[in-house]
């Protein structure tokens, strides 16, 4: 009895120790944790004037502070909003590109909160009934391990129009005097209203993502689509394309059939300044939440941001106290009516897919507004405009069908706008395009040119036609084997330097004496000179069989170095081999 008790005691002690050990703590494996990620994208609309006023909104970076500001942006009393037609058209084009249902009638609301970047104390947005709902977006994902391309789908919950807030500059620990007697309070904020009032499209996705790489791929593809249809320049660095990521990790209750997903805590990631930050920030946040769940620690409802220096997310503010935005209809903006032959005012949907009903009198009045140019927003005209746009998926399909490219290569081409260059090269070629030349074009664009895209900051300054001509001349040199493959990369880099902007490839090769050397006598003389300078290596080659490969490589390398890498590599190999064998 005592023995059994002792054994049981020791067993319980072992169990207790095991419970404290990390192996038991992390018994929740990845199958029992479900990740849900949703995105909110704020895309700045490309337009000449702002959404609710006529202040200019171009060249935000170089415009002096507070100079593209109207009285409405500064919320001066008595000013009224005036909706920009271009912003409505841009949101409709985006809705068509994302396969959304367009509401024939949408409303504007005020979202109230007090902050220095919002002079009026409220933002005009669309909350109850936005301009578009219920879309579906297909985006490509390249598997980082297998490099295979697959397509995934994501639901677009809503697209709504709103305006941007002002730009703020935080002044920390910087005291400066306004005049001799006054001092500004610490941590004052400087406000620039140039950005205030610019049109934004808020695109909200469903919580359909489960991996950080999918979010990254989606954001990149969406940016490409918006650039293709001309509604947004999608420059993340300048704040024209802001992505907020909502991450929640849920435990699965496997005792039920089917397993149920238990509620989780949603953490928002904001102020992500690049696509890489979206990827790294989301990856870190998923790991962090999984770790907290495994340790049975609570996850706080908060807003975080990604610190690129330290490679982790940090807390910005808590969201435990939910802010009441006190939404109310915008009294200065009437409902936005979209007219179309196929769009009936009935069947109008708002959030949660609830249907709205209009009175008969109102429906009768709509006919008047349909025929009045100032009030009419014609969806059919926007659809015609959309037909002339070429989406990234269409560009990829064209490359695959016309040039027999793989899907993966087509993806890289379109992502880096290389297909425009390829089409230009092919169209300007007077002679018939052979399969070898086409392969060469594709190879050069995917390797040498893509290298330049990543490294050369001056590439954008070179005219498109000049770029195509340079690439064409370079390909001619390669095809005719007039340049050694050992210097092809460095030669290409030199070709695209600003100082060589006017030179084609053969001109540069002539100027710098970079044409391939096939003079056997010259190579032999160089080799003989090197062998006189390295008698030890020659003796080793004669006497030590095991070192012959190494010595062969040594002489090949030295010959190339002497001839500045422009000698024909195959010829050099042949001559060195023949020479060394003759010594035996």
């Amino acid at each position: 009895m005592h023995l059994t008790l002792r054994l049981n005691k020791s067993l319980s002690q072992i169990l207790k120790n095991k419970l404290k050990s990390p192996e038991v703590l992390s018994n929740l494996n990845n199958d029992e944790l479900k990740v849900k990620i949703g995105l909110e994208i704020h895309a700045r609309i490309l337009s000449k004037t702002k959404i609710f006023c006529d202040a200019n909104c171009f060249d935000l970076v170089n415009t002096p502070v507070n100079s593209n500001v109207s009285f409405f942006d500064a919320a001066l009393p008595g000013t009224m909003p005036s909706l920009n037609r271009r912003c409505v058209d841009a949101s409709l084009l985006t809705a068509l590109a994302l396969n959304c249902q367009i509401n024939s009638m949408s409303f504007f609301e005020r979202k109230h909160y007090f902050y220095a970047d919002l002079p009026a104390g409220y933002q005009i947005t669309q909350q109850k009934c936005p301009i578009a709902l219920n879309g579906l977006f297909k985006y490509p994902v390249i598997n980082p391990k297998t490099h295979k391309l697959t397509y995934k789908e994501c639901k677009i919950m809503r697209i709504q129009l709103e305006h941007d807030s002002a730009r703020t500059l935080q002044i920390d620990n910087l005291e400066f005097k306004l005049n001799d007697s006054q001092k500004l309070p610490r941590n004052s904020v400087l406000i620039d209203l140039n950005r205030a009032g610019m049109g934004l499209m808020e695109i909200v996705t469903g919580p359909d993502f489960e991996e950080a790489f999918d979010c990254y791929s989606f954001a990149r593809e969406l940016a490409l689509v918006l650039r293709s249809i001309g509604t947004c320049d999608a420059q993340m660095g300048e704040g024209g394309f802001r992505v907020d990521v909502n991450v929640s990790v849920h435990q699965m209750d496997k005792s039920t059939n089917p397993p149920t997903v238990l509620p989780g805590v949603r953490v928002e990631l904001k102020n992500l300044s690049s696509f890489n930050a979206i990827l790294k920030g989301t990856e870190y946040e998923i790991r962090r939440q999984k770790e907290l769940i495994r340790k049975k620690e609570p996850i706080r409802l908060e807003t975080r941001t990604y610190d690129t220096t330290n490679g982790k997310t940090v807390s910005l503010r808590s969201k435990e106290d939910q802010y009441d935005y006190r939404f109310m209809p915008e009294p200065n903006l009437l409902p936005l009516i979209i007219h179309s032959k196929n769009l009936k005012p009935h069947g109008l949907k708002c959030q949660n897919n609830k249907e709205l009903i209009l009175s008969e009198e109102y429906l009768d009045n709509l006919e008047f507004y349909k025929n009045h140019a100032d009030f009419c927003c014609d969806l059919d005209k926007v659809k015609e405009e959309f037909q002339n746009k070429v989406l990234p998926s269409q560009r990829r399909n064209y490359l695959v069908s016309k040039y027999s490219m793989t899907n993966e290569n087509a993806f890289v081409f379109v992502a880096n706008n290389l297909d425009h260059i390829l089409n230009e090269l092919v169209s300007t070629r007077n002679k018939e395009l052979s399969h070898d030349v086409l392969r060469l074009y594709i190879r050069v664009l995917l390797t040498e040119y893509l290298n330049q895209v990543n490294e050369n900051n001056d590439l954008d300054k070179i005219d498109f036609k000049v770029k195509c001509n340079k690439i064409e001349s370079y390909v001619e040199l390669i095809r005719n084997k007039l340049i050694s493959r050992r210097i092809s990369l460095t030669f290409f880099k030199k070709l695209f330097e600003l100082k060589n902007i006017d030179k084609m490839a053969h001109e540069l090769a002539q100027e710098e004496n970079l044409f391939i050397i096939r003079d056997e006598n010259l190579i032999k003389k160089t080799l003989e000179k090197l062998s006189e300078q390295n008698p030890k290596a020659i003796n080793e080659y004669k006497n030590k069989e095991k070192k012959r490969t190494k010595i062969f490589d040594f002489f090949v390398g030295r010959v190339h170095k002497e001839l500045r890498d422009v000698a024909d590599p195959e010829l050099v190999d042949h001559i060195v081999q023949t020479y060394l064998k003759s010594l035996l």
Partner: protein
Amino acid sequence: MARAKSIHLISYINFRQYSKFIPEAPTWDLIAPKRIKKISNIELKKLEKCSMLTIDEKIANDLNDAINIVERMCNANVTNEIKSHIYYEHLGSCELREDNQKLFPYENADKTREKILQNAAYTYEDYFVAPPSKSK
């Protein structure tokens, strides 16, 4: 209780059937329903803790009344989804402005900036200066 009779109501609302506990017209007189829900003392204590309020007899009675009013709505037959209504009469459509259309002739950007900044309490190198505020 009378059922909804008037035709104009039916034209707006499809197939809605009223429970006999719901009066035909709005009224202040609360007719006691058959089942009266009452909050138990334990639940009241929990509410006190969550709300950090002291719930006395009056508040408890008001709470019970409020719950019972809502309880009647739960008795309404809403098997066919009730649609929300928006009634816009004599209102129009939002007027749209062309992208390059100027509403007022601005003299130039500098004068507009001057006018906008002149009411600011503090400015610094043409920036507005705002005191530190609580994050949104």
